[in-house]
């Protein structure tokens, strides 16, 4: 085996974050203005520019991340989503106001919400596949190899169990979706896994529910620390059969000052400081996450590329205001 560089592989790698509030504020306000003037048509380009910015200011091992998606792809996705919603909402309006037929109204509403719910797994699949395909580092693209119908079955079972258990199964569903996604993401020869368990997540939520009122809300900061650690530290990477972990250095005190300062900034500037708080939050997350383990980042080979340009799944989740991360 050839040793490419003479330096030993470091066992700890940190992210560098170069985002600046004032820089992002220009992108942020420019996009609000363009969205207003175009009555929202500009939104896909605005979304892509923000994603590109967040990627470009994040550095690992001296190389920036890259988002290679385009506004045009996201726009095409939105056209599909809007076509779907316009057809359905006109049907709903027709059945409720014009026809006056109650059975038709009930059928229309049930179909609408059932369809929305059933489309979510397909949207998750599409979104992850699109985002993976468009995310690169050192010229290597992520690749999602999940199968649409597997995600559908997983979610269908999960939705039903969540309804039957009055939401309790939600934590297990969350974990199983995460695990499915991560075990199907590849970055060259690096594979991923999620080791978190549903009961751990449920316990984190339960503790929050119990302690929130007793501590007058102060427990929120410990809860955020627990959630952050649960989601990040349970991600494992594998390269050449070696396990590489993620570590979180954030403390509840750090989270406390992040949240409180962000809150004060927003309140006292009537929201004008929003872009600065966004950058502060990303900076906090990235600078407190460390890759712990030997990882050879110089010889990752590109897998057969997945040039997936359909952003409609990603747009659908965005439309419903569902954020996977």
């Amino acid at each position: 085996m050839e040793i490419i560089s003479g330096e030993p592989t470091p066992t700890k790698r940190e992210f560098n974050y170069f985002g600046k509030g004032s820089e992002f504020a220009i992108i942020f306000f420019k996009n609000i203005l363009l969205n207003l003037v175009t009555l929202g048509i500009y939104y896909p380009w605005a979304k892509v520019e923000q994603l590109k910015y967040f990627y470009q200011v994040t550095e690992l091992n001296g190389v920036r991340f890259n988002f290679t998606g385009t506004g045009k792809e996201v726009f095409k996705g939105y056209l599909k989503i809007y076509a779907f919603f316009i057809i359905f909402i006109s049907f709903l309006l027709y059945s409720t106001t014009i026809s006056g037929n109650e059975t038709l109204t009930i059928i229309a509403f049930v179909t609408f919400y059932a369809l929305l719910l059933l489309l979510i797994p397909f949207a998750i699949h599409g979104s992850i596949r699109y985002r993976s395909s468009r995310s690169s580092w050192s010229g290597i693209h992520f690749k999602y190899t999940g199968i649409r119908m597997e995600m559908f079955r997983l979610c269908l079972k999960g939705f039903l169990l969540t309804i039957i258990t009055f939401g309790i199964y939600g934590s297990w569903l969350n974990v199983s979706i995460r695990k499915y996604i991560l075990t199907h993401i590849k970055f060259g020869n690096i594979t991923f896994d999620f080791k978190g368990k549903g009961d751990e997540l449920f316990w984190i939520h339960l503790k929050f529910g119990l302690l929130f009122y007793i501590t007058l809300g102060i427990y929120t900061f410990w809860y955020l620390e627990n959630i952050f650690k649960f989601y990040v530290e349970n991600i494992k990477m594998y390269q050449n059969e070696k396990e590489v972990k993620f570590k979180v250095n954030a403390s509840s005190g750090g989270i406390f000052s992040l949240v409180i300062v962000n809150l004060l900034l927003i309140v006292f500037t009537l929201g004008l400081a929003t872009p600065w708080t966004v950058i502060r939050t990303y900076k906090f997350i990235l600078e407190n996450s460390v890759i712990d383990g030997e990882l050879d980042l110089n010889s990752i080979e590109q897998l057969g590329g997945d040039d997936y340009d359909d952003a409609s799944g990603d747009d659908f989740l965005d439309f419903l205001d569902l954020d996977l991360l």
Partner: protein
Amino acid sequence: MTYSIHYFDGKSSKKHAGDLTLHANFWCIEYTDSQNKKIKILWNTKEIIPSEVYSEGIISFKYGTFPFQTIESNDENLINYIQESNSFTKVQNRFDSLLHKSRIKTIFLLCLFIVSFAVFTFTYIIPKVSEFFITNLSKEYVTHFGNSVFNSLSVGLDIDQDKTEKLQNFTDALKINCSFPIKIHVATNNQINAFAVSGGKIVIYSGLLEKLETEAQLAALISHEITHIEKRHALKNVSRNLSGMIFLSILIGDVSGITAVFFENAYLFKELSYSRELEKEADINGIEILKKNQLDLNGMPQLFTILKNETNFEITSYLSNHPALDERIEYTTSIAKTYKTTPKTNSALKGKWKAIQSTFKN
């Protein structure tokens, strides 16, 4: 002139430190690979894809087809040269680098533009457009819409047929110019309330009807509600609300929850003031109807005095969708005075009013 860059071939993550030379038609990338071999790559300038987002101290370009070759550089000379050169307009982002020249000034100007555009849209475009839309909506659609609203509302109403019939007789005897056929319903309910539904339906609660003392007061109440119907107030309100909310959601789509709350509340205040405007319009137009029927114009302020005496609490005007009752009494009284008319006895209306009153005596 050469610039230092990092090159990625799109096949491996290996970072190649190399040099970039810029020519008008092609860019030349040179580096030495791990076997000490000199590699030279040419990029046709027409096919170079810029990163399309500005962030300080870094520049990157893609080339070819997916998964792309990439170069990345933090060489300030290269960044400045590309932005200023006239040969590479396709990969430049002059507008963005202009925006980032003086950030505070840019942010200030952008916010100023956003605020002025939003204010202009809310105060001028949205009212004009929604007014135009509703005024031009076909009469049939308005009636149809109103009927379906009324059908769902009427489920909870206990309609008094006898009172309804007598009140309908009274209304039919009123001289009104309304393009919708007016259908009155009296609902048995102790609350002091009345409302109009688009397309011509009016509901008056028996609790309110019982408190009225003269035919002029009843005519005032009905003319107020008829104005809502004739001027399509409910639909105007809905249309303005809806278009306002859509515009607002574009405006606050990307901002955090707390900021959204600020904007939504400011918007709610504005909406309430619009509802009050419509109420005032109905009050004033109602007086016109009284005048046309030669009824006592003081019926309107008297109606509000009854409402005032019967309701226990009063919401401050700016928090309510109706103007404060004292305010309404004041402006209707002063309008009534300016007309200086002497009411004549309208015996037809008086007789019909007596018939309604008699239903409460049984």
